[in-house]
């Protein structure tokens, strides 16, 4: 599955081919190489390319090309050794650490930290005494030092997977721990391991070459690093010789990294479409000049770039929001209600574009064709926004107060002192019991309900004419939801704001909305005042939705003991 997608990436294919060629040529060096790696011709010492020696001769008169091939065996073996050691140690310890946690995790994590703190090269040098000039032993040591990378990767993946519900489900299904690790956990961590392995193999080749370059290798065994060292010593006799091992190393490592990147792209689906198609020019719209409501959306069409042009998620929506009214926008997930709301804010997700005859007239101004800077001046001042998730919508790095003060100063041009006073006042207004404490708190120190009140305070701080509320109570508990709805209602009447309220909950609609628009698959299927809509829904979809509410269903009765 993944493999096929990787093969669709030309760069990855090229990398794979290069790697294969290098690996095969190394493995079959005795068959491919024109000369023995040790055969020398005294007349070819430091000779340039050509005449018998394809890439020239090295400092001892041996064929550089043949030696590159044979060196590949040793260098790649070294890399494989380092990689295997790192993999086995890192993956096993990561699995144990992540899955069992507790003391074991503590001990293994401490060990991993210990290894991570080591400057690898220096330690390898220090161990040179004990390891001797065997580069393979050095690579074993290097593998040990690389293992924390895998340990951390696997551990964090396992921790994430461990809390996935499907692992719980497997446990409930009666799977033993080893089977769960084997079936569920390893399956998921497999891909990141492969990516990391590609990178680690590259690092191993580079570090190994570095050690050999420093003279800590075994000159009797041809390796890329050793050849580079030989070329470096002879650089004033043969300048060209440093290129061959250098390029071979670079090519091999680059291929490994590219392959890793390609796999990552496929897995994370970060592969961007080649280039988003240029969005078609907006066709000029002609809103009625007379008697405009506060917000008039006509023909709103929203598209996102896809492999073939733009994929529409909202198809020609018309909607009015009048001064001071609460307009409910209801629909199920994927109906386009949130996209409609974001269009008004001008904050569609990256790539999102208005298409065709889309028009958003706000208080007589055509927003769809307004330059971004002017649109920005409307946001926060004339149009406010209340998001859905309270916690993720506060910047975790800043105190709550600062997050209120900054927009107040930016939008209203208040002095710092005045802005602080205003922020405290707002916090009090949205029903926060101890405004000063909340003002000084970081987002992670307050509850979800509090956070939503803070966000509401922020949204109304510029005294906007229109408030866009995107599922403002969905993430809250029922009792908190009721409080927040009360608050919203109070603010709305107090400031005389219009509100576009996006929700899927008909209870919320019934509670607060004056009018309702029902959306399905990117279209508005029905708009009506709230009472007639509930009393006599016209569109079949509205009927289905209202029919699905459980409010009036009869509870099931207690079972008789001998029912069965």
């Amino acid at each position, binding site marked *: 599955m993944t493999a096929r997608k990787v093969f669709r990436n030309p760069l990855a294919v090229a990398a794979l081919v290069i790697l294969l060629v290098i690996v095969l040529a190394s493995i079959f060096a005795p068959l491919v190489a024109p000369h023995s790696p040790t055969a020398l011709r005294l007349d070819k010492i*430091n000779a340039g390319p050509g005449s018998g020696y394809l890439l020239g001769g090295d400092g001892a008169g041996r064929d550089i090309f043949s030696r590159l091939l044979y060196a590949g065996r040793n260098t790649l073996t070294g890399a494989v050794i380092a990689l295997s050691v790192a993999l086995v140690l890192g993956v096993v310890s990561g699995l144990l650490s992540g899955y069992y946690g507790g003391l074991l995790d503590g001990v293994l994590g401490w060990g991993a930290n210990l290894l991570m703190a080591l400057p690898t090269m220096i330690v390898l040098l220090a161990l040179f005494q004990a390891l001797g000039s065997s580069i393979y032993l050095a690579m074993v040591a290097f593998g040990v030092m690389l293992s924390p990378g895998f340990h951390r990767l696997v551990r964090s993946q396992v921790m994430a997977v461990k809390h996935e519900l499907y692992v719980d489900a497997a446990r409930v299904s009666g799977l033993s721990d080893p089977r769960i690790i084997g079936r569920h956990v390893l399956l998921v961590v497999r891909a990141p391991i492969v990516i990391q392995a590609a990178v680690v193999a590259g690092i191993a080749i580079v570090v190994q070459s570095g050690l050999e370059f420093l003279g800590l290798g075994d000159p009797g065994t041809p390796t890329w690093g050793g050849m580079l060292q030989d070329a470096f010593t002879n650089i004033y006799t043969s300048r060209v010789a440093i290129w061959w091992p250098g390029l071979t190393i670079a090519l091999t490592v680059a291929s490994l990294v590219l392959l890793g990147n390609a796999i990552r792209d496929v897995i994370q689906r970060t592969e961007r479409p080649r280039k988003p198609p240029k969005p078609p020019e907006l066709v000029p719209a002609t809103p009625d000049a007379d008697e405009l409501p506060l917000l008039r959306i006509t023909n709103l069409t929203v598209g996102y770039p896809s492999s073939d042009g733009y994929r529409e998620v909202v198809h020609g929506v018309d909607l009015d929001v009048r001064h001071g009214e609460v307009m409910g926008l209801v629909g199920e997930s994927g109906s386009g209600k949130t996209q409609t709301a974001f269009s008004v804010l001008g904050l569609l997700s990256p790539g999102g574009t208005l298409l065709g005859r889309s028009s958003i007239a706000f208080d007589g101004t055509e927003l769809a064709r307004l330059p971004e800077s002017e649109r920005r001046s409307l946001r926060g001042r004339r149009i406010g926004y209340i998001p859905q998730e309270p916690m993720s919508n506060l910047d975790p790095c800043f105190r709550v107060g600062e997050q209120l003060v900054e927009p107040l100063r930016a939008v209203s041009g208040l002095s710092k002192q005045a802005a602080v006073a205003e922020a405290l006042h707002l916090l009090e207004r949205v029903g926060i019991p101890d405004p000063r404490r909340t003002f000084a708190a970081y987002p992670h120190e307050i509850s979800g309900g509090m956070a939503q009140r803070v966000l509401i305070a922020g949204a109304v701080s510029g005294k906007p004419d229109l408030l866009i509320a995107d599922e403002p109570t969905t993430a809250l508990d029922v009792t908190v939801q009721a409080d927040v709805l009360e608050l919203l209602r109070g603010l709305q009447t107090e400031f005389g704001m219009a509100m576009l309220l996006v929700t899927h909950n008909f209870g919320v609609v019934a509670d607060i909305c004056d009018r309702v628009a029902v959306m399905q698959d990117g279209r508005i299927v029905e708009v009506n005042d709230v009472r007639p809509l509930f009393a006599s829904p016209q569109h079949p979809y509205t009927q289905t939705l209202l029919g699905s509410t459980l409010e009036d269903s009869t509870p099931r009765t207690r079972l008789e003991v001998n029912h069965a």
Partner: protein
Amino acid sequence: MLIRRCSALLAAAALVVGAGACSGAGASSSAARTLTIANVLDNNSFDPTQLNIGNQMQYWSPVFDTLLTRDKDNKLKPWLATSWTYDAKRTTLNVKLKTGVKFTDGTPFDATVVKDNLTNLAAGTGQNAYMSRSIATYQIVSPTELNLKLKAPDPGLIDYLASVGGVMASPKSLKAKDVATVPVGSGPYVLDKTGTVAGSTYTYKRNPDYWNASAFPYDKIVIKPMTDVTARLNALKSGQLNATLTDTNSLADAKRTGLTANTTPVNWNGLLLLDREGKLVPALKDLRVRKAINFAFDREAILKNVSHSEGALTTQIFNAAGDGYDKSLDSIYNYDPAKAKQLLAEAGYGSGFSITIPESPGFAQYNAIIEQQLAAIGIKVKWVKVPSNAVIPEILSGKYPVVFMTLGSQSAWQDIQKAVTRKSPWNPLKAGDPQLDKLLAAAQNASEAQLPAAMKAVSKWLVDNAWFDPWYRENSVYLSDAKTAVAMQAYNVAPAISSFSPKE
């Protein structure tokens, strides 16, 4: 004993090494009065018992005078000692001393000082302690004259007195705690503490009271330890240095870029056939086998291609500038693989045999050649990997029948001490021969006039019996820039400070 070239060659890969470095003003800044050079090794110590010859001589030769010295033609000449004469039995050396010389701490130089220094050296743990160990007693005749009484004749002694054996330091400093870092000598320069960072830069400024200042044209000497040959060459080419030791590889390029190459042959490259008595490999006991090995190597091609023709073919181990040199011994075994095979066949080894050789990382270039050319006459080489810092201990351990080396050669007697006697370190299998013993005894007791002939006899015996397989003497290459003249010295890879002078 000495392994001069060897340390130079192995430096990049190991062995005796030191930190590479560079700091202080560039060579160009203060023009002809400052000499800036790079050294392959870091200074190991200024303690007179720990001094080394070869590259490290450059660090101590500015601060310490020696009793004797060598001129440009390798002739010994007076320095702190004004004359030196042996008695007839060659067991008493009478030395007369210069007057009026003072150490930089004010202590006057006299006969007692000489005795203190020589006994101090013999008692120490340094590599060159042997240089004064042949002296049994001291007879101080006057403050300016003393007799050194020897246990037995030592033809090397006078050479030693021009080297570490003749280094004179203030007796007070010998027992000082900081003897390793603060040299107190009577030399032309003093170590400038402020300009010196161990491992990085050693700066020397003139000794204002020096008795022979005119012999030293520079006001300031800067020596930077730089291990890597390419780095040294880069520094020289980009004008950061006036001169430095490199190797034969760099010659062609150096000449192209207007640097002067100063060369002198110090080392011989080739095999030491250590197992002459067949203790490890019975075949090597057979002279024909040893000769066959001598015939197996294409010396000419190796010299031309590996050492860029910088050197001279030879089959003897003695230095061309020394007493034992015999030109006729340079071409006894010319490359002749057919003859080698024939000799092996005659010895009963027509189907070959195998030998074990340590695979020293520093000689990777030669190892390939050895393997190939021995294989061509039917001798198979089994390599034993040796970490670079264990090369010398391994070779001297007596585990190997044959080793490759680039051995430094000085005076013939020194070379004999190093590799020919039954006790020599480079004769780890303790090979010996009654006939050789006689020749050696004759040489030891020979008068100055008889010495060259006695040495030549030893050399001839060694060549005839194929104890070694020298290929060629390789030139040390010391590069200098256009402003600097360097006079090479026969026994030293790196010239002493007195050998540098500014070009006008």
